[in-house]
């Protein structure tokens, strides 16, 4: 098994999916999904509730086993080479992965100490300041609003500096300032060469980020094209 820090070839797609299927009971949450995501690309996953966006993100992260098909993340099967894949990606979902009785600073310290390459402790408070959480650094998470929890969760992605970010509804629960900050952060991260797969219903804001879009319907890819064309396509499908 390769070490988690083993670099993958630059010309290799970060994500390669072929005929992917995932069945829950009798129904297929994903079926015949083919998708490739290149390094530095941003792919927006759109679709109605239950169309398979979250399942696809969790499958890419290796949290869900596929029922059929091929899946390679950084050239490896994420269900087998867990350390190889997970040390390079970060999944941000509507679950914050937070402990209610730890403070924001303690959460950050915990993630930092458990990560493969911890940062110096002195770098943690500036991160909280950057996300507007410095004043609440020593408050327990249980008293945080949904927006503050989301900001703290996003800090995890900033802390880990992964090559691949899987964001599930990142704009939800954020106030307009938070959404603008997140948009800028994603743009800055893309400029550094990071790859994004974003599932979102906030299409106006998400399509501003550019990149390409994938429209999922009942677990299948119904359309793929530039994000600039998604809104028209999505409204056309909806009607």
């Amino acid at each position: 098994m390769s070490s988690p820090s083993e670099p993958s070839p630059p010309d290799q797609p970060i994500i390669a999916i072929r005929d992917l299927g995932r069945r829950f009971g009798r129904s297929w949450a994903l079926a015949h999904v083919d998708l490739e995501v290149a390094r530095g690309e941003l792919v927006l996953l759109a679709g109605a509730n239950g169309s398979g966006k979250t399942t696809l993100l969790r499958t890419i992260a290796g949290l869900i086993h596929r029922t059929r098909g091929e899946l390679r993340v950084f050239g490896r099967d994420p269900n087998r080479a867990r350390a190889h894949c997970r040390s390079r990606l970060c999944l941000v979902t509507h679950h914050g992965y937070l402990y209610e009785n730890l403070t924001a600073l303690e959460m950050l310290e915990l993630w930092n100490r458990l990560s493969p390459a911890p940062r110096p402790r002195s770098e943690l408070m500036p991160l909280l300041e950057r996300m507007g959480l410095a004043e609440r650094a020593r408050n327990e998470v249980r008293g945080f609003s949904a927006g503050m929890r989301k900001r703290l969760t996003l800090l995890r992605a900033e802390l880990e500096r992964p090559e691949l970010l899987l964001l599930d509804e990142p704009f939800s629960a954020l106030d307009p300032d938070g959404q603008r900050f997140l948009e800028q952060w994603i743009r800055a991260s893309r400029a550094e060469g990071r790859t994004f797969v974003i599932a979102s219903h906030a299409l106006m804001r998400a399509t501003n980020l550019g990149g390409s879009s994938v429209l999922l319907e009942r677990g299948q890819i119904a359309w793929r094209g530039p994000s600039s064309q998604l809104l028209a396509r999505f409204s056309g499908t909806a009607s």
Partner: protein
Amino acid sequence: MIVLRQLATLIAKDLRLEWRRRARLLVVLVFACTTLLLFSFALGRETELLVKASGGLLVLALLLSSTLGLAESFRVEHEDRALEGLFLLPVDPVAVFYAKTITNTLFLIVLGPILVPVALALYSVHIEPGKLGDFALIWALTASGLAAPGTLYSGMTSRMRGQDVLLPLLLFPLAGPLLIASVRSLTLLITGDAMDELGAWRGLLIAFDVIYWSIGGVLYPFVCEEGT
């Protein structure tokens, strides 16, 4: 080295969470003391019988109260899918298991300094001061023997409905040899060890602990990940 760093970090996190949620320890202690009291009511006022049974009653009180503590230990990990977050970092599941098991062992050991004096007073038992070290060792071995399979089963059942029923159903039959060895050891320490049997029972306790701490570390990575 990374696994050891993760283990130390997770133990510190678990102990911190236990301290912040220390009302849970109080509830378990009250439950255990109530159990001891009810046992004394059930057996009546016959002092000799109470003395002979006191070792067994103490271990039973520990076993019954352990299920409360063990069931709770993984609940906090699922409140906001924190455990999934740990696995995504990625944290080695083996480190998660041993951190939880060590914390649960400490949790059960801490019950001892309260439960044992209560039992001694309720059951009119006297322990020679020279045997207190052995008594503490047997208590610690029993606590760690319950914690290892208990943590494994708690991890397995923590996402299921009816965990409070499932956990004792799985744990109690498995804990049979541990209970027998522990009860025999404590009884020998209380009533006297004329045949010098204590060493053999203590050996059985150590063997049980070694086996289940090893098995738990091997099995936990297979049972902890969802979606298989």
